[in-house]
């Protein structure tokens, strides 16, 4: 229904030069601030590393080789599969997935609740959802650290009420990182889901119930197909930035284990000074994300065709 209406919207069909002018600034911004840096990164990943940062303009596959093969501490053993960076990637993906799941568990009911309020109340609730965003992410992450640490309010509260006998050691664990990411990106989950639930026609649920569908079936067969795109959009908006995050892992996870973001940061701002490797790691991350989105987009296209 929606698709049908959109393809017959105003301005489509007839050539409309205004349309191109309207999109031009966006294209310029994307071209200059996104495509150009990505191209630069792509080129750098195939250059030779200069000692202590910088690149030598000679073609080299060393960065990708370093990512894939382990030649031992001294670099002279026969190459084996490099698990170091795979571990870092798997860890980051797990953390990001956990954060996304947490966001979904809290975000979906929240969005559902807001969308079912009277219109004037909805605005107030949405406003409240965005309030934490008035504060810088760094400040919010540091505050999270204060809340979670052994002597922080959370532990003191639980201790005072005798819920626990020993402080929970949350700080400097992966749980702390997941909580940090979850809290950082929660509104990214709530808002897209809200947008779809708001459009959902609740008389459809009533109709389904009249036809003897139980609550679970209504949710799964009637509602999910409609709000599904919102859930997917929210998940992407939470998952992708979580994957490259380095504030939460560094501040809440104790920087003990590299996440992809901190691994890349180390190549530019750390001791390593290995720009080609940092670029190659970024390219690999980017390719993985793009591939995942591509596969998803094809799946959606196929479903729509059916």
């Amino acid at each position: 229904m929606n698709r049908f209406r959109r393809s017959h919207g105003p301005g489509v069909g007839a050539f409309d030069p205004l349309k191109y002018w309207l999109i031009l600034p966006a294209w310029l911004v994307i071209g200059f601030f996104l495509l150009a840096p990505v191209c630069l990164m792509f080129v750098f990943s195939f250059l030779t590393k200069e000692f202590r940062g910088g690149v030598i303009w000679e073609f080299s596959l060393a960065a990708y080789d370093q990512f894939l093969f382990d030649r031992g501490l001294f670099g002279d053993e026969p190459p084996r599969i490099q698990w170091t960076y795979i571990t870092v990637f798997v860890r980051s993906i797990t953390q990001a997935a956990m954060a996304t799941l947490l966001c979904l568990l809290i975000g979906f009911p929240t969005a559902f609740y807001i969308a079912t309020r009277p219109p004037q109340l909805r605005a107030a609730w949405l406003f409240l959802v965005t309030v934490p965003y008035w504060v810088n992410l760094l400040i919010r992450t540091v505050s999270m650290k204060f809340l979670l640490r052994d002597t922080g309010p959370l532990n003191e509260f639980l201790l005072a009420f005798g819920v626990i006998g020993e402080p929970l050691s949350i700080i400097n664990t992966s749980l702390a990182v997941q909580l940090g990411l979850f809290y950082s990106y929660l509104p990214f989950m709530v808002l897209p889901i809200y947008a779809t639930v708001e459009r959902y026609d609740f008389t459809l649920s009533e109709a389904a119930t009249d036809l003897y569908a139980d609550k679970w079936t209504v949710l799964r067969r009637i509602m999910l197909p409609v709000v599904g795109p919102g859930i997917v959009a929210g998940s992407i908006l939470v998952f992708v930035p979580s994957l490259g995050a380095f504030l939460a892992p560094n501040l809440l996870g104790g920087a003990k284990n590299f996440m992809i973001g901190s691994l890349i940061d180390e190549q530019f701002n750390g001791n390593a000074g290995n720009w080609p490797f940092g670029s190659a790691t970024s390219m690999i991350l980017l390719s993985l994300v793009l591939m995942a989105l591509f596969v998803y987009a094809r799946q959606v296209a196929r479903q729509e065709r059916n």
Partner: protein
Amino acid sequence: MKKILCTLAVATFATASFAQEKLSIYHWFEYIPQELLDKFSEETGIEVTMDTYDSNETLLSTLKGGKLGSYDVAVPGDYMVEILIHEGMLDEIMPGELANKANIQPEWADVSFDPGRKYSIPYQWGTTNFMVNRDVYDRDINTTAMIFDPPEEVRGKINVLDSRGELLGLASIHLGIPQCSSDREQLRALDDLVQGAKPHWASFNSAGAKEVLVSGEAVVGMIWNGFGAKARQEGANVEYAYPREGMIVWMDNVVLLKEAPNRESALKFMDFLLEPENIAAVSSYAWYSGGVIGHEDLVNPEVLAAPEAFPPDDAPAGSFVEVCDEETDRIYDQIWTRLKQ
């Protein structure tokens, strides 16, 4: 309205012509009191702007990333001075260009990282050791084993600095091996040592090194001496250790950058920091020691009396973080990456 605009225009023009002389500083965070910069501007009429960084490596990567030519002076640590000299990023200070060069204390007038002090002048120096919470642990703390082979009570409550040079440097001191070893047995031992100790460490945190001690999150925490003095001042019952195996010393230095847009201002600023009372103001602010003759008498006495300020007489000599050649450095980098994997 027109009048106001005119006044504004005149004022802008006046400041513009007056403040022709400028100085652009690239400095560590929270390391110079604003009053001192104001004083410099007042005395010389030079307009000062400052950007900050939080590690020697960030300084290097910023300069490499195309910022050389935007700053006049920077404040690299000892080993970074050596690296910046190798990289050709520093401008030589010609004899006679600094009127106050003779004010440098004799022990800092000729240093390993800048023989003959051709490129740098002393800013502040100190030591990098660790502090221990005395409420939790009351036995002997003057050993690097507190970090690398920690006693039961402190395990899992240790914070180390997120700095390869200082952490692997202290680990090398613990093992009694050189900092830039190419001996495979020694390097393997170093790798094993840090890998074995890591499960006992709670976090790698440099900027929060003081905060984790004050909050009690860490019972043992690697820290720079002045930062540690502040932790104690803020009420933590912590004591700064002077390990008998040895310790890391460091010195931050003011350098003149290549392609400095305001070379003259930079030299004036360096002369300004070689005045005892000015560098004393930095020491009173940062709780580290200066390297200028006669500055001690002008430093806040509380800073000088702090147990963190100077190593006791029976403490072993400290070592600077060493700069390894490319091949050796690659192996240390491997050890560091494996440690943080």
